[in-house]
């Protein structure tokens, strides 16, 4: 186990800066999630830490040792890739054993067997060990891919959207599993995803990344409650935050200079009103445990959360007030 330290790391491909001036320290035993949309530079950041790319500028240290110039094999990391899973020409067993059979490691076959079988039990794929890697379902493949990262005990685990190709149920299961494994091992994990739920549930800290730049780092609560700008505010929250002109709605409290208010569902008070009210319910989305109210208001639309047993219906008139919304200035920075 070890900490990862990135200092001013930049990587360009031609004219695109995939990662720009990235400084970030991931503490020993921390589960840091980099959150950003496709093309934000998440994969590149991971590849830089793994040594698969050389930075154009900056330094990378793992466990206090400068590894900027070292090849991947010398860095003692594992990597779960986003795009591929397993060696198609090997069995599941051989796939799991592959990292241990590296010529630099020289683990005795008996020990490999014990480790692989133990891991297979943990991942619930014991009965698939003899299968070819190509004869597995997507979920099983991805378990094996994660298993390959767990089979040895590296200083650092790097994971590139390992759950993104799975269906919702499996994703939820594996999310729990991963978190449990991380806690059990006390592993240092750098994990990237575009999925806010993964970020919120897995992370000790979240780093929000946009077009190669790290915008904000903090605990999931901090990122959610105190986003530095509208971009970060939009990354978290389901349904997404409503961004509205400051003078559109009455609010109990606005910081001076506010141009945009960010209203999450918990900041919105919806009250039924008579026909004079400005808000109109466009439709009600029933999700079972909750309902989303889509409201049109002076040419803007916003989404609020209501009880599933709400009496509000389509075309109902509503009054809306805001309680402690987020305040952003003209440049989109949060000022209160």
């Amino acid at each position, binding site marked *: 186990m070890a900490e990862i330290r990135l200092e001013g790391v930049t990587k360009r491909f031609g004219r695109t800066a995939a990662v720009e001036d990235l400084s970030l320290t991931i503490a020993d035993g921390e589960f840091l999630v980099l959150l950003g949309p496709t093309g934000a530079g998440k994969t590149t950041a991971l590849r830089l830490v793994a040594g698969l790319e050389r930075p154009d500028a900056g330094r990378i240290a793992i466990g206090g040792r400068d590894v900027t110039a070292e090849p*991947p094999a010398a860095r003692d990391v594992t*990597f779960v890739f986003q795009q*591929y899973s397993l060696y*198609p020409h090997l069995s599941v067993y051989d796939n799991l054993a592959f990292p241990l059979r*590296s010529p*630099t*490691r020289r683990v005795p076959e008996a020990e490999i067997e014990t480790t692989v079988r133990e891991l297979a039990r943990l991942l619930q794929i014991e009965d698939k060990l003899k299968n070819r890697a*190509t004869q597995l379902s*997507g979920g099983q493949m991805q378990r094996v891919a994660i298993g390959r990262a767990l089979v*040895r005990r590296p200083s650092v685990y790097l994971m590139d959207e390992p759950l993104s190709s799975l269906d919702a149920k499996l994703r939820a299961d594996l999310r729990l599993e991963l978190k449990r494994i991380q806690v059990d091992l006390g592993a240092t994990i750098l994990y990237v995803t575009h999925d806010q739920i993964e970020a919120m549930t897995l992370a000790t800290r979240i780093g929000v990344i946009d077009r190669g730049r790290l915008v904000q780092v903090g605990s999931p609560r901090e990122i959610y409650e105190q986003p530095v700008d509208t971009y970060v505010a939009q990354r978290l929250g389901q349904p997404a935050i409503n961004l509205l002109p400051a003078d559109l709605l009455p609010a109990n409290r606005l910081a001076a200079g506010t141009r945009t208010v960010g209203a999450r569902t918990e900041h919105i008070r919806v009250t039924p009103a008579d026909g004079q009210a400005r808000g109109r319910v466009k439709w009600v989305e029933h999700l079972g445990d909750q309902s989303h109210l889509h409201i049109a208001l002076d040419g803007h639309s916003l989404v609020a959360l209501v009880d599933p047993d709400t009496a509000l219906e389509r075309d109902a008139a509503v009054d809306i007030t805001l309680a402690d919304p987020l305040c952003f200035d003209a440049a989109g920075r949060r000022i209160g």
Partner: protein
Amino acid sequence: MSTSAHSVVEPTGRTKAIAGSLVIAYALITMLPLVWIFLTALKTPPDSISYPPKIVFTPSLEGFCNLFTTRSRQTEDYIKSLPPASGTCEQIARARNMVVAGPSNYVPRFWNSVVIAFGSTFFAVALGTMAAYGFSRFRVPLADDLLFFILSTRMMPPIAVAIPIYLMYRELGLSDTKFGMILLYTAVNVSLAVWLLKGFIDEIPREYEEAAMIDGYTRLQAFRKVVLPQAATGIAATAIFCMIFAWNEYAFAVLLTSGEAQTAPPFIPIIIGEGGQDWPAVAAGTAIFLVPIVVFTVLLRKHLLRGITFGAVRK
């Protein structure tokens, strides 16, 4: 596997019948000369040139005997004075007033073909795989120009360079040597190999090697353990193409080999001249010559058909 999804393009009975007859017709057209060669190989020389051609005949080993032996003509009295014939070929020869004088050159020529074809295929595929890997994975300066140059060596007909190569080989002492022929066929095939294999290696996601390198393998070890097995299909296909070229090559073989390193293709036609038009011997030589390439192709065919990476990469 939904059948209804395919029903729109499911061929009708008539289409199937037409397609079927076309395939059968094509198969017949290509197979007929081969069948004729095998039949001729089993005929006697008179049967082989009889008109109208004989479809039904008594099979004879005369063609094979004539292929593997040299014979000398003797007087009937001399032959009568000999002790009884010891082998089939001796018997056949005596029936035509000849005795077996010794083995022919067919076996050594055939062996030359084997050594030269396998040798050049091995080197072309080995060099081609490594070059293709380099072009596929590394930023090679002027890669496109180099690849075009490599391909362009295949664009002119070989005969265009026959004279310069003949002179060069004579000067270098490479004429009529197995080494020289392996070198030549390797040079001709390596361009094809690089192009074919680059396509196959481009298809293998580089994440596989990267994963191996992160796991503590060097690039060369990753190449051997991860890339080679997945490129096996492409390597097999390439090997077949190289093999077929080297095995069948005639023009350079005639020009550059005459004894020591002569391959079977220039040798087989020579048989005709020895004592009349001995078509059964030529046919026998050709029939045997066909066997290795057919076996080689059939053996690797399984490999060609098995798409080993199918479904392994998540989309």
